[in-house]
């Protein structure tokens, strides 16, 4: 079952995180890469990716860092979560309001890697 937390359309390569990421302290929006040394995907970029993770984690400043990443073009194209997270949703909404950047957020399960499309209808492979 898919729940749309923030609407919009996006398409991109899936990056499925092996552990939840705190954007604050865990993602550098200037450089566009994960900087949490404890994170298994430390060093990866989220830019243009369909970010898949179970839930958000850590600092409540993550909204601002996510918004800043979206402003700078280093944020994900879409976010797919297993559990709703208002901290991520808020960051995405503010980036949309201030800068017109879209980043749909849905609660769904993605079972495979590759390119996926996220829309208000749900998620589907795009190849």
């Amino acid at each position, binding site marked *: 079952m898919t729940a749309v937390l923030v609407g919009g359309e996006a398409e991109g390569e899936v990056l499925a995180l092996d552990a939840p990421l705190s954007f604050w302290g865990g993602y550098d929006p200037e450089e566009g890469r994960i900087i949490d040394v*404890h994170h298994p995907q430390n060093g990866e970029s989220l830019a243009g990716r369909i970010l898949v993770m179970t839930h958000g984690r850590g600092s409540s400043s993550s909204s601002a860092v996510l918004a800043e990443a*979206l402003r700078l073009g280093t944020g994900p194209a879409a976010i797919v979560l297993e559990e709703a997270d208002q901290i991520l949703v808020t960051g995405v909404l503010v980036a949309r309001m201030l800068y017109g950047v879209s980043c749909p957020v849905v609660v769904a399960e993605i079972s495979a890697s590759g390119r996926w499309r996220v829309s208000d209808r749900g998620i589907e492979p795009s190849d």
Partner: protein
Amino acid sequence: MRLEEADRARLAGEGGAAAAIAMELVVAAGRAMGAGSLLDIAGAHVDGCLYHGLASLDFAEKLASTGGEVVVPTSLNVSSLDLLHPDLYRGDPLIAGRAKGLMDAYVAMGCSPTWTCAPYQLSARPSFGEQVAWGESNAIVFANSVLGARTNRYGDFLDISCALTGRAPATGLHTDEGRRATIRIDVVVPDSWLDDDLFYVVLGHKLGHEVGTEVAVVVGLDERADEDRLKALGAAAASSGAVGLFHIAGVTPEAPTVDAACQGSSPRRVIEIDAEDLRHVLADLSSPSTTLGAVSVGTPHASRSELGVLARLVAGRATRVPFYVNTGREVLAQADVDGHVAVIEEFGATIVTDTCTYITPVMRPSPGAVMTNSGKWAHYAPGNLGVEVVLATLTDCVESAVTGRVVVGGLA
């Protein structure tokens, strides 16, 4: 979502443009969280005053310049600058200027310039059962768990939006159901560990890993888990996981018993944490480095009692390495009255207020690992500052500073 007349009026712009933006965010976040309605809040703690790039400044200035004014008492979290000790800042002046602009925007909206990540140490703090909207992960978990106040995990932007409207989505940790423990954690460790501050830090870190966003009830602790230790535990748990509330059977206010914390249901999962598990966590968090570069304590901001303990440990001694103590300006004033500030400064420590050593450039470069007694600092500093961290008790931090080399007892 059911909205009240006043909510709809705000959405329509009758309370001004800023209130309309704020209301829109509260409603959108509430819908995203599946809330059926909004509730009134009695206060807010805003985390958005820490500079994270132009997006944070653009948003605050937009609200402030369109007439934003908080409608409930609102405290402010740490910022990027220490206004009491401005010379400590070693970063880019351009960023400092923007960070100051951000702080000014929040004060202009009527927030109190408290500049602390430990608002639960301020003279006014929420009472049991009070509905509030707090940002800052360690403050959220403390408000819920230790005070029994009720807040969800509010991020930057949504926290000030709640403060500007006095409203929050009625869901999650605001509700009885959302506060029910679904996991029971049995802690099986030597009794002497319950007297060791480091144990609470490491347990908190493990707790965050184990429970993620769920609510746990911890069994096996007692009244030795005082406020300072619960603060350390919660801060670590909210860094390693998305913990917004924990219960400790026989200790925290909603958990006189395990059954009360579970509201009569059976826990979905039972996990045992033993001494060996916690030694592994400590080894993972703490570097084996033996070269000492600096010491940083007070994350979250040191309490009046913690500054008292520190003063007793350092009295008449001198540190050989840079030694930083982070605290809030209100607590600093109290500790000054206690006579503790002079003792700590005589020791050679640098007191940092309004901000913290791991979120803004104040530490002088000093080769070697940084020692801390904070699980939160140990978690974030390697990424933020690129330093190696040794996690130890406050006593070990002081002994190491005095001898100039790393002295750690660990969890024996």
